[in-house]
Structure formats: structure tokens, C-alpha cells
């Protein structure tokens, strides 16, 4: 099934285009000459060793980090320093963080309702309906009026996913969504992500969950030291990585 998606995605226009993108932190080049196209509905898994630039790459896609060179075009809008453009793009790009980054002073439902009300301008009741609907989808509707600190890590991350979905984004970015979770909570978050993938969401995930990558990814992109080293469908990538660096990385994480 994922492979069918891959061929479809190749035909439709790309929703994310990254061209010759460069990102530096001071004198350190975090990303060097990155080229990447993501088709509508495509699922990409980014992996690679710590410090390889994979998180930085997806943070550049919604301009949380500003790139220093090259171009990034998201849904037809080039990311420049124009605030209106950036906020417009961010409405269409949901992001899920490693540390959840829920707003601790707001209830679960309020976390989900804030941006749709303040950015999209929908009414309180409509926002609440939408929030409850999506909380239901991530299977925590009964926690809607609790505060984030009262939930488990897995529940918090599912709230974070629901919060991003409340903006009805076209693209979802996941930045190591399961890395801060206790092992027994990883599954519930991954299941939510798999559901989302089945519905045809465009997804770019930084993750080391190889089972997830096998199950949903159209392409796996392996990064090392700020460059894309290898790009392949998940099966060939995991079975027989072409590059030595990918091979040694996979040996490290698959025991």
C-alpha cells in the first residue's frame, strides 16, 4: 500500500520543495545543500544519527528555524521573512514536538481551541466541537477538561497531535514524537500516527521507530552531518542500505 502512494505522489505537484537549502548556526553548518521534494499525501521518514540535522530540516519547513541559503516552498508559498506568508504557511503545517510543548496553563480542550479561534477566527462552540472531535479521534475525549500535567506522556503527545490537527493542516511534521516517552506509551502514539497516515495526510516524521517507517513511509531519507546521504523506499533501505554510513547507523539502532 505505501508504495502505491509513492507512485501517486510522484505524479502530483510537490507540496514541499526544498532547494539547495543551507542552515548555519554561527560558523557551524547544520544543513548543507539540502534538496527535497515531498508530494501531496506522501509520508517521509527522516532518520540519521544525533546531530545529523534532521530536526533542523523539519524546523526549517515551518520556519521555526530560518534557513540561510536556498529556497523552501510550502504549498506554493516561498518562505521568506514576510510575517504574513510565514503565518499563512504555519496554519497549513502542523507540528508535533519531542517534548509535546503543550500549554500547561490551558486545559486539553483549550490547547486545541486556541489557535483555531485566534488564527482561523472560528467561534468558541465550533472550536470546541472540533477539538472534542479530534480528541475523540486520538482516543482521549474524556480528558478534555484536564490540564496537561494531569496526563501521561503518551496522552500528552496525543493531545499535541490533536492540537495540530485542529488547524486542519495539509502537512504534519513530527519531530521525534516518541523519543521522550516511556516505552509502554510509544505504541499508542504510533497508532495515532498510523491512523493519520491512512487518511492520506502528508507527513514528514523524524523518528527512529523503524517499525513505523516500514508500515507507513513511502520514502526513508537518511541524513548524516547535515546532508541527505540516502533516499529509498523503506524495504530496500532497511534490507540493504546502499551507503556504508546508513549501514553502520542501522546496525547501531537495530539490535
Amino acid at each position: 500500500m505505501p508504495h502505491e502512494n509513492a507512485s501517486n505522489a510522484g505524479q502530483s505537484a510537490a507540496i514541499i520543495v526544498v532547494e539547495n537549502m543551507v542552515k548555519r548556526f554561527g560558523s557551524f553548518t547544520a544543513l548543507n545543500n539540502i534538496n527535497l521534494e515531498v508530494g501531496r499525501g506522501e509520508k517521509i521518514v527522516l532518520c540519521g544519527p544525533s546531530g545529523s540535522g534532521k530536526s533542523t530540516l523539519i524546523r526549517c519547513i515551518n520556519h521555526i528555524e530560518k534557513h540561510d541559503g536556498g529556497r523552501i516552498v510550502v504549498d506554493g508559498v516561498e518562505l521568506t521573512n514576510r510575517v504574513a506568508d510565514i503565518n499563512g504557511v504555519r496554519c497549513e503545517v502542523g507540528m508535533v514536538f519531542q517534548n509535546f510543548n503543550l500549554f500547561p496553563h490551558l486545559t486539553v480542550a483549550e490547547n486545541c481551541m486556541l489557535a483555531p479561534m485566534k488564527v482561523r477566527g472560528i467561534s468558541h462552540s465550533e472550536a470546541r466541537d472540533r477539538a472534542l472531535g479530534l480528541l475523540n479521534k486520538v482516543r482521549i475525549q474524556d480528558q478534555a477538561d484536564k490540564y496537561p500535567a494531569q496526563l501521561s506522556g503518551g496522552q500528552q503527545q496525543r493531545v499535541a497531535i490533536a492540537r495540530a490537527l485542529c488547524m486542519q493542516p495539509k502537512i504534519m511534521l513530527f519531530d521525534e514524537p516518541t523519543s521522550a516517552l516511556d516505552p509502554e506509551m510509544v505504541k499508542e502514539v504510533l497508532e495515532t500516527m498510523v491512523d493519520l497516515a491512512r487518511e492520506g495526510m502528508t507527513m514528514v516524521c523524524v523518528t527512529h521507530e523503524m517499525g513505523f517507517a516500514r508500515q507507513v513511509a513511502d520514502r526513508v531519507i537518511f541524513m548524516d552531518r547535515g546532508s541527505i546521504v540516502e533516499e529509498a523506499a523503506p524495504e530496500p533501505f532497511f534490507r540493504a542500505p546502499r551507503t556504508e554510513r546508513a549501514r553502520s547507523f542501522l546496525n547501531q539502532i537495530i539490535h
Partner: protein
Amino acid sequence: MFGVLFEQTADGQRYIDWLLSGLGWTLALAFFGWWIAFGIGVVVGVGRTVKNRLFSTLARLYVEIFRNIPVLVQMFLWYFVFPEVVPSAIGNAIKEMPPPWASFFPALLCLGLYTASRIAEQVRAGIEALPRGQVEAANALGLGGYPTYRYIVVPQALRLILPSLTSEVMGIYKNTSVALTIGLMELTAQARQISEATFQTFSAFGAATIAYLCLALIAYRGMTLIDRAVRIPGTTPAKLAVDPELADVQQAGALPGAMEAVK
């Protein structure tokens, strides 16, 4: 010991009426001054953290000026100098205000603006103490600068600095006593007047001291109630976080990582 307070004064009142009148001015000055200070303090504190160079420089300038001039000097500046440097029509209007107001308004302005500079620094510290992920998450949702501050950053920063705001509440009402230097008959001024009229120095200032202490306790108690009311469920109260040993160990240990900074 405080019997003297119930004796008749030359103007037919009792000395305690003088004291109560002084207490009233002290409270009025502290109360209204506080809201001026809080409003300006939050705005300037936010200004210190914004990316816009002009705003952050102006905010910095404000803080440096008002925080670094002694309150007493500021009091004199507002009372004696300010009416002279503004256009003479305004200056004359200020000088012609009836007696208590002519002292009250400069004192209000002085204490409000001075305390605002102190609050601004705490607001800035509170904002800077928030995890970066909060702003990133708000930005990622498409929230612009204003809503991010209004709904995400400031509400959390204020909760964080509530214990130190308690000190500012106590600070502003204690500083009201400086207003006696420009002729406002507040609590300390009345105590001095009683002492001069009766030569009962101990009783006069003893009563004032007790009044100040009671106000401090009320302020402290009030802030504790506010702290409890705005506390985020599932977290420890801010003042316990200052001394972790006071906090319920189990509760503190149960805090998930994302909440650590909000303690």
C-alpha cells in the same frame, strides 16, 4: 499603652482618626499605584523581550531610569521639578490643585512608575525562564506575536513570578511612607504629627508599625490566595518551588518534564 490615641485632639477629633485618615491615604496610594505599576510593568517587561530593537531599547531605557534613581529623588522630581518643565498652563494647573491632591498625584505617579520598572524586570525574567518550546509551539500553530504573548507567554510568566510580585506589593505600600516628604498626610506622617502633638513617640509610631505589619500580612495572605486560585492543576504552587523541601515530594516527583519550568 495606646490610650493616647483615643484622646481628643485640638481640632475636636481623636488621634486615632488622624491615624485612620493616614491609613486611608496609604492604602489609596498603594492600591492605585499598584495597578499603574502592574499595567506598565507588564507592558515594559514584554517590551524588554520583543525582537523589535526600538521597543526593547525604549523598555530598557525606562527600566534603567526609573529603577536606578532613588524613590525619594523621584518623589521630589515629580513634585517640584515636573510642574516647572511642562508647559506653564499645565504646570500652573498642577500647582493649583487643592492640598491633598497636589501631593497625592505626584506620589501616585512616582510610586507607580518606580514600581513598574521593578515589575518589568521580573516579568522579563519570568518570560525568559519559560521553555523555548512554548513560543515555538505557538508559532507553529500560526499564532502571531501578540496572541502568543497574550495567551501563552504572559499568563505563564505571571504565574511564575507571583512570589516575587508579592514582594512588590509589600514594597509599594512601604514606599508610600516616602510621600510624607512632599506633604501627603499618610500613615507615617500622621504618626509623626501625633508624636509631635502628644510627645507619646512610642505609642504613635508603635501604632503605625502595627498597622504596617497588619497590611503586610493581609497582602501576603491575599497573594497566597491568588497563587492558589491561578495554580495550574497538577503542579506545585510557585512559592513551594522556591524551596523544594517544602513541597510534597511525591507531587514534585510526579511532574512531567514539560512542566518543570512552570513550577
